[in-house]
Structure formats: structure tokens, C-alpha cells
């Protein structure tokens, strides 16, 4: 390990342990992957391979998706393969830029909601209102699914069932 990385790790470990954390340092390889889907859209991932057989994958472009943990290194390549296929398919749509923008907005929405709860004392009614709005969006997504033509069959959707 690079001397300076090691020094930095030692400091972090000391601070985190004193904060009360259990810290395990796992050496591994960080991999950055990037695909040019077209001239404007690039899809990028970052993942970590380590000896503990725990693999963390994150898509960082065109919009971030939450960290996932997988059992084997092969899973990572399969997931990236399908993801890239879906994006190559999706760029054919005229709505691709709208799709990316909405995803950004949704991501920002989650961050704003987190700030709202962590920084302010929110009354219960506000939660109920937000919950109702989310249910409306869920319903809209499901309705849209019902009346739209399916375009990708490489695998079944992970979150849109039925």
C-alpha cells in the first residue's frame, strides 16, 4: 500500500475508533468503468473487489444510484452488461434527456428530504402529505407501465413487478 494512503488510513482508523466505531480495513482494488453510450451520454461505474468477497458497485453517471453489495465478482460484470445494454436501448428514445433529468431531481429530492428531517423538527402531518405524494407518483409509474409497450427483455425488472 502506498505510504501516504497507509498514513491516511491510520488516522481515519484512530479517529473512527475513538468515535466508538468498529473498524475493519479491507485491502482491495477500486475499479472505475466508463462506457460512451453516445456522444453526449456516458455511463460510469465504480466498484471494489476485495478478499472478503464483498463487492460494492455504484453507478456514478449519468446519475448516481445507491451502493449495492453482490456475492461474486461475476455478478458485477453481468449487472454492468445489462445496465449498459438498457442505456444503449434507452438513448434511442427522444425522452432520454428528460429521463436523466428526472432521475437527478429524484436523487436531489431524497437528499433534501434527508436534510429536512435531520435539520428540522417536522410535524407528523408533513410526513403524511409527503407519503401521499409519493403514493401518487407510484401509482402514476404503475399506470404508465400498464399502458406502455415493453422494449427490453434481457431480464425481468427488479422493482416493477407484474
Amino acid at each position: 500500500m502506498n505510504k501516504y494512503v497507509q498514513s491516511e488510513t491510520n488516522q481515519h482508523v484512530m479517529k473512527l475508533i475513538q468515535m466508538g466505531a468498529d473498524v475493519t480495513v479491507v485491502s482491495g482494488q477500486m475499479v472505475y468503468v466508463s462506457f460512451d453510450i453516445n456522444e453526449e451520454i456516458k455511463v460510469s461505474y465504480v466498484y471494489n473487489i476485495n478478499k472478503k468477497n464483498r463487492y460494492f458497485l455504484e453507478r456514478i453517471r449519468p446519475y448516481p444510484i445507491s451502493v449495492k453489495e453482490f456475492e461474486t465478482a461475476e455478478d458485477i460484470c453481468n449487472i454492468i452488461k445489462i445496465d449498459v445494454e438498457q442505456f444503449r436501448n434507452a438513448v434511442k428514445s427522444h425522452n432520454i434527456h428528460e429521463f436523466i433529468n428526472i432521475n437527478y431531481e429524484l436523487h436531489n429530492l431524497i437528499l433534501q428530504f434527508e436534510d429536512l428531517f435531520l435539520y428540522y423538527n417536522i410535524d407528523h402531518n408533513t410526513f403524511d402529505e409527503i407519503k401521499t405524494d409519493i403514493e401518487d407518483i407510484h401509482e402514476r409509474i404503475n399506470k404508465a407501465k400498464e399502458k406502455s409497450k415493453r422494449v427490453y427483455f434481457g431480464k425481468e425488472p427488479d422493482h416493477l413487478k407484474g
Partner: protein
Amino acid sequence: MQVDHVIIGILIFIIAYIAIVSEKIHRMIVAVFGAGLMIIFHVLSQEEAISKIDFNTLGLLIGMMILVNIIGETGLFQYLAIKSAKIAKGSPFKILIYFSVITALASGLLDNVTTILLIVPVTLVISDTLKVNPIPYVIAEIMSANIGGAATLIGDPPNIMIGGATGLGFLDFIVNLLPLMTVIFIVTILLLRFIFRKTFVVSEESKKEILSFDEKKAITDKPLLIKSLIVLFFTIAGFAFGELIEIQSASIALFSASVLLLIGRIEPEDMLEKVEWTTIFFFGGLFILVGALESIGVIEFLAGKVLIITQGSISLTTTLVLWMSALLSSFLDNIPYVATMIPLVNSLSEGSVATYEPVWWALSIGACLGGNGTIIGASANVVSRGILEKHGFKISFMKYMKIAFPLMILSIIISTVYLLVFYL
């Protein structure tokens, strides 16, 4: 030996040396490339080249690197640092002294760079908590590491090389150098305390925060720590009594490393990955480069010239070697310097009725303490500066030199008096 081989050998050595000193290309690549050229141009054969490598030095370095890496991961350093900061009740001056003592003691047993990599991160956390500038602490630690490393056979690579070449053992280094280094350490730390007397202002709140640290949490693997300390104890005992049991230090270090890997149930791949192979290969290449110079008679020629200057006087040779080593090691890597000086001193001592032991001590003291003179004088200094810069603290060449160079010169004056009084 043909004349063209002599010229080629000298040219390869000089170019390699300049390249190593300039640090434009990694020193390991230069040393191995230069060693390869020596063989390709038939300055020496492959068999001769391999016979020039001091495998005792390499084995000792590898064994100690494995041991130290394992110990480092147990959290021992953090424990000692937090405990001492709490004993000091957050007083910045006491912490400076305690951390310097820990660094000096540790670097006597461990490699200086490793010691720095363990102590400086802890220092940054403590200085951050105290809201004080970490630079005075790190300067004290750099100097303590170089002084502590000079006190033992295994503390600094020049000593390992000198021990390997001369047969001077662990106890010889302790008996001859530890008292001197103790005096130099005390003088240096007291002067540093004086130099930095106006630097530290610490609030009571910060001191309380230090007291809230729990040193016990720092120990990440207590059973491994106990096993490591037991193995380290027997390793040092092995070094001390190595001559009696007729086992060389490399065998002791490598055997100890294998014992700790065995009883600690440590994944060997993980530990071997942490061995600084670039350093090991650098040493291997360097031994061949210097060995080639020896084979073609250059060392013998230089020794003859030195004898003309010193007239065979041990006092003059000792003083000359001490000051030349200190001044050169302030600016240059002391490892290639010592590697070149070892065959030279060996050649000087051939046929001499007087003992050359003081000259060996002068070489060791000069090469190790000289490193304190500038921020580029030793690997520990360079690594410390790198860590500090990554945290936004800059030690300029001149700022460090203004403080450290006079202290280094003072340490060499003390050493000159010591050598002249006790050996000459």
C-alpha cells in the same frame, strides 16, 4: 580485468549514482538497471554479481518488515500515543517529549520510515484535537527517529549494512552507540523544546478532549499484540545473543517472522504484500553496483588515496569519515553512500595493525545522524513532509534546515568528542 571494463564499470556506477541522487527515476529501477548493465557489459559475471549481494542484510530487512507490519496493525502505537498524551494531561510540551521518546525507542527496533508512518498519523489526530500546529511535533519525531535508529543494529539500514559487512553485532551497537545517542537525544529534545517555546497555546477544552480518548479502544487485536510482543522480545534476545548461538541476524528475523505468521494465523499474502520490495531490490542492485566497483579495483585505488591524505592516522580517518558522512548524508541518500564506503573502509583496514572499529562507528553515526540535517536527508524526513503536505502543512527546505541543521552539527560535535575521548 581489461581497461575498457574498468572504464565502463566506473561510468555505469557514476551515471547510476547521479540518477539515484537526482531522484528523477525511482532509485530501485536505477540500481537494478545499473546492476544489469554491469553484467551485460561483462564488468562482472552473473555468479560474481550474485555473490556481491549481502543476503544477510536483505533477509534482516524482510524479516523485520514482516514483524513490524504485524505489530503496527495491532494498534500498539495508537495505544502508547493516547496513553502518553493522557499522562501528559494534554500539555503540548510534555506530549512533544513523550512522543519523541516513543519514536526514538521504536525506531531503535523498527525501520525509521515505518516508525514515522505509525507515529505521524497519531500525532496529526492529537495536534488536531489540541488545535495546535503539528510541525514542531513532526520535526521532533523526524529527529528522534533518526537518532533512535542510529543506536541499534536494526534501527537504520546503514547500521544493518555495516553490521552485515563487519560482523559487529546487536550488542556491539548497543554498547557503543546507545549511550551516545541517549545524550544526543536529550540535548536535541531540550533544544527543540526551547526553540518551540512560544509555539503552543492550548485551551482547557482541547485538553479535556484528549483526556476523553480511550487508549484501550486503540488495541484492535489483543491476542495478536501479546503474541507479537513475545516474538519481538525473543527476536531482540536472538539478535543480542546471536553470536553465542552462531546464528546470523537475517535467520533470526526471518524465523521470527515465520513464527508470528504461524501463531498469529495471519494471511501470508497480505503480509508479504506489505514488504517494501522496492527497497529490497534497490539494495540488491546497489550491492552489485558497488561490488562491481570493488572487482575492478576502484575501491582499492580510492583507499590508497585516502591513506595518503590521512597518513594512516585512525583519529584523522575517524574524524574525516564522521564529518564527511554527516555532511553528505544531509543531502544525499545515505544507503548508496554507506554501500560505497563499506568496501572502502574495509580496504583501508587491510594490513593495518590498529583497529578500525572507531571508523565503522564514525561511518554509522555520520550516515544516520547526517540525515537529520535537511528535510531530504533521510527517507523518514521525506515521508513526514509528504504526510504533512497532504494535510495542508508545509515544511520548506530552509525552514526545516534552519532548525535541524545546527542541531545535526551539534550532534556531530558531541559524537566527535565521544569518539576521540573513548576510542582514540
